[in-house]
């Protein structure tokens, strides 16, 4: 096999491996469903969950929400349900290239929480359009004496 042929083969294998990784990545991140719910007329906001040693921190981006009074945060079982009303509706002349003249005026997001959280001690704050919810974990702590 000449050097050129080897390089071409190597390049082909590299691309195949890249492609396989991409497919694996897509499979891991799951099927992307649309970020809107036409039946409820609500948008799904972007949200991020960060797990620390003793607490879970959830942040949610809520543009067009101005007042904390327009936000509801409920924890039911292991579901954290966030709903918020926008101060103005968001209109799309076409949405996903298919739906015409649809508008939304609320957000809704359901996030699965781990088993070991303490929902009664959760706190939330809303600043600059970002909602932050902190939920403590039930952690059994012991101090081990060092001898």
């Amino acid at each position, binding site marked *: 096999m000449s050097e050129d042929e080897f390089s071409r083969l190597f390049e082909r294998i590299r*691309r195949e491996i890249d*492609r396989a990784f*991409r497919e694996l990545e897509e499979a891991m991140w799951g099927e992307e469903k649309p970020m809107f719910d036409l039946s409820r007329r609500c948008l799904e906001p972007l949200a*991020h969950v960060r797990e620390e040693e003793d607490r879970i921190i959830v942040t949610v*981006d809520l*543009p067009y929400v101005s007042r904390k009074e327009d936000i509801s945060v409920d924890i039911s079982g292991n579901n954290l349900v966030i709903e918020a009303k926008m101060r103005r509706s968001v209109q799309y002349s076409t949405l996903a290239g298919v739906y015409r003249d649809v508008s939304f005026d609320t957000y809704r997001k359901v996030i699965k929480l781990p088993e070991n959280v303490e929902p009664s001690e959760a706190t939330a704050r809303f*600043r600059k*359009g970002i909602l932050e919810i902190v939920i403590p974990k039930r952690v059994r702590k012991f101090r081990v004496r060092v001898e």
Partner: protein
Amino acid sequence: MVEKISSFSIIEAKEVKPRPVVVCGVPDAGLVGAIAASYLVRKLEMEEVGYLDSDELPPVLVFHKGKPSMPIRIYEKEGVVVIISEVAIPLSLMLDLAKAIVDWAIKKGAQRIVVLGGMPVPNRMEIEKPEVVGAAILDEDRELLNKLGIEVLKEGFLSRIHALIAKECFKEKVPCITLLAQSFLEYPDPGAAAAVLEKLSDIIGVDIDVKPLLEEEEEIRVKLRELMRKALPTIVRQTRKGYEYTTPLMYA
């Protein structure tokens, strides 16, 4: 004119004038670079002059006002060229894209490449006006940053697409400045985009009024949710390596 560089083809529908300043904005942390580049194109009423394409890019064609466009496009006006991507770049293509941009810029005799982006910080919620740092490849670019009062990155790592472009520029001794604003990682951040544009304005000597960008901040955040979600897996994978927060070995 068609150029093939790495896995990318660069197609100039109109020949780009030599010696431009090349500004790059691709989806990354907070979509800062992409938002800033898109605003710049709109604000300066730049002309679309070409595009970059690769078989490995997501299979999409973008439509704006009924007209089809390629997802990675080249715009030009009065010596400034903007390269903007409307799609998340797969990790496996980033190096090829960086090489394609830098090789093409060299062929055009570019005065300088300026890469715009975000630098994710955990306390972004508390920050009113994001700070911007500039990382420069050549001494003269560091001098320029100092002269313009832009904080120069002295110790630390660049990462992700910014690092790939900067590395290619370092190898080829191409003037390159990376402007990074404190930003959200996972939410579109027009405030950070406005901050980098203010500094870019000083570098390229073109007035850029960012007030309208800040006024339409909420609209941008709503509309870019989907793109942010698509770009995030790649950004998170690269950010998890955490180099931005790492002290380099030599100075530990």
